[in-house]
C-alpha cells in the first residue's frame, strides 16, 4: 500500500467516525433531553460517543497533515494554497474552538450542536464536492459563506426538531 492510499484510508475512517459520532451524539442528546435530564446511562452513552468523535478528529487531523507533508515531498506544493484546503482547515479550527467554547459553557447547547453537526458534514463533503466548487470558481470566502449558511440551516432544523419534540431549552 502506498502512502497516498494509506492516508486516504485513515482520513476516511476519521471522517466516518467523526460524522457518525456527531450524528449519534445529536440523536442521543435529543433523546436524553426529552425528559429534561440526562440520566447516568444516557450520560455514559454520550461520553462514549464524544470519545469516538475525538478519535475521529485525531485521525482526520493527523492524516490531513500527512497529505500536506506528502504534497511537499512529492513536488505538489501548489496544492497547499488550495482554497478548499484552507476552508477545510478553517472548519476544523472552528470545530476545535467550538468544542472548547461548548465545554466552557460559553455557547448555548443548540448553537454548539449546530456548529458540530455542520462542521463535521462540511469537512467531510468539501473534498467529494471539489469538482462542483471548481466549476463555480468558488474561492475561500465563498466556501466559508456556504459553511455559515449550512450552520444556520442546521441550527434552524435542530431548533425545529427540539420544538416538535417539546425539548426544554
Amino acid at each position, binding site marked *: 500500500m502506498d502512502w497516498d492510499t494509506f492516508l486516504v484510508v485513515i482520513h476516511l475512517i476519521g471522517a466516518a467516525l467523526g460524522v457518525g459520532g456527531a450524528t449519534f451524539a445529536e440523536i442521543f442528546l435529543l433523546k436524553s433531553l426529552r425528559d429534561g435530564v440526562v440520566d447516568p446511562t444516557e450520560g455514559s452513552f454520550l461520553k462514549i460517543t464524544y470519545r469516538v468523535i475525538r478519535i475521529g478528529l485525531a485521525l482526520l*487531523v493527523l492524516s490531513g*497533515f500527512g497529505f*500536506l*507533508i506528502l504534497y511537499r*515531498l512529492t513536488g505538489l*506544493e501548489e496544492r497547499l494554497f488550495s482554497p478548499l484546503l484552507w476552508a477545510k*482547515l478553517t472548519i476544523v*479550527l472552528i470545530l476545535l474552538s467550538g468544542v472548547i467554547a461548548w*465545554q466552557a459553557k460559553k455557547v448555548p447547547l443548540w448553537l454548539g450542536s449546530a456548529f458540530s453537526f455542520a462542521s463535521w458534514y462540511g469537512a467531510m463533503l468539501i473534498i467529494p464536492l471539489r469538482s462542483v466548487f471548481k466549476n463555480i470558481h468558488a474561492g475561500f470566502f465563498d466556501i466559508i459563506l456556504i459553511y455559515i449558511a449550512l450552520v444556520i440551516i442546521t441550527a434552524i432544523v435542530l431548533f425545529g426538531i427540539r420544538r416538535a419534540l417539546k425539548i426544554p431549552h
Partner: protein
Amino acid sequence: MTQTLATLLIAHVILGLIGIGALWALLMALLKKMPSIRFLRASSLVAVIGFILSWISGGYYYVMYYGGPVKAAIKAGPNPWAHAFFMEAKEHVFLLLPFISIALACAFFFGGERIVGDDKKRRILFAIALIAALIGVFSTLSGVIISGSVR
C-alpha cells in the same frame, strides 16, 4: 532532499501536532469541574516532549537544508513574504512553546492538587495553555504557507 531530512520534516510536523493536541486535551481537562491531576500531568508532559522533539527535528532541518536551497527557492518564487514574514515569525514565536509547556508541566507536577482545587489558579493556567495552543496553531498554519511557497 535526503531520506533523513524528509524524515526530520515529517517528525517536526507530527510531533508539533502531538504537542498542540496535548495542549488541546489540557484545555478541555482544565474546564472540567474536577479534572484528573494524572491526566493534566500526562498531557502537559506529552506537550513538552512533543514540542522539544519538534524543535530539535525542525531546527536540524532548518540549519542543514531549509536555510540553503529552500529559502532561496521561496525568495525567488511568487510568495517571498512566506519566508520574510511567516518563517521569521514562526522561528521566533515557536521558541516560546517548549518553555510555556515546561512551565505548565511544572505547575501540574509540583502544584498538584492545590492547583486543581483553586479556580483562580486554574483559570490562569487555562489562559497560559490557550496562548500556547494559539501560538501552536499559528506556527502550524505558517508551516503550511511556507511549504506551499516552495516552487
